[in-house]
């Protein structure tokens, strides 16, 4: 547990740690792949867009 916390602190305090890690560990093709959870979040974002546009129709 203590070891986990130390590792966590190390990456927490390094700016750009994740982006660098993705660049060095994954190829460009691998970085194109999307997880299911990301796709769901994109769908939710599209839903928010449609909701906002509907709201505009009533307000503006």
């Amino acid at each position, binding site marked *: 547990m203590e070891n986990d916390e130390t590792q966590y602190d190390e990456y*927490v*305090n*390094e*700016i*750009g*740690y*994740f*982006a*660098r*890690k*993705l*660049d060095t560990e994954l190829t*460009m093709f691998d*970085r*194109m792949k999307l997880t299911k959870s*990301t796709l769901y*979040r*994109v769908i939710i*974002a*599209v839903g928010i*867009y449609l909701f*906002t*546009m509907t709201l*505009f*129709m009533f307000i*503006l």
Partner: protein
Amino acid sequence: MIELIPIVIILAFLFETMDSCAGMGFGTGLTPLLFVIGYEPLQVVPILLISEAITGFTSGFFHQEFGNAKFKIKKPINRETKVTLNIAILGCFAIILSVFLTYYAIQVEKVVIKTYVAILVIIMGIIAMIKIKAKSNTYKPKLLTFFSALAGFNKGIGAGGYGPVVMLGQIFSGIYEKTATAITSVSEGIVSIVGVGAFVIIPVIQHSSILIDFVLLPSVFTGGFIAALVSPYMVRIFPNKIWKIVIPVYALSIGIYVLLTLYII
């Protein structure tokens, strides 16, 4: 019925794509173009602020989702979040000052200050291009504070160019390009919310009223929102060395574009 204007959607999409990929250009690039098309400042400025507030956070959320940056709201907050807040706080003070100057009609020679910012951005772009191959990327917080304050000062006096100075300032301060774009998007989102607030609150304090025309909002929001989803994904896919070239070249183009709009177009 809301009106969607195709040319405005396309322009908003293009400029927001570059803004979310390279951290600059939405306000500086789109505003003069919309003026050229024939829209008035009160049809453009508040609408871009509202749109930037929404798309800044959307883009920031997806930058986080795609791993370009990791923001952490719960304590202990990480450095990426601290840097974002530092930049945003300075920007918030600046935008309030900027809106005050606009309302109280304090005359600042726009051409002179905009020329100064354009030249500053061009010089920073050239330095960033020279430093493309530099290996050193040690984080320099004091330098970052200086550039954030400088960007805030420029915005405060109404000269714009907040994005380019903050973005290139982060790169000079040793922040990874991909992460710097994410930080800029979120901080611009925060600053824009405060800007919208200032536009609403200041007339109330002054007991005056202001008529904001929302005709452009659906179109700017549509183009900007699509770009805010696409751009973080592009930032993730393309290697950082591409952004190391794109960001200074785009900054240089923005600086030249501002000079052209001031003196030629």
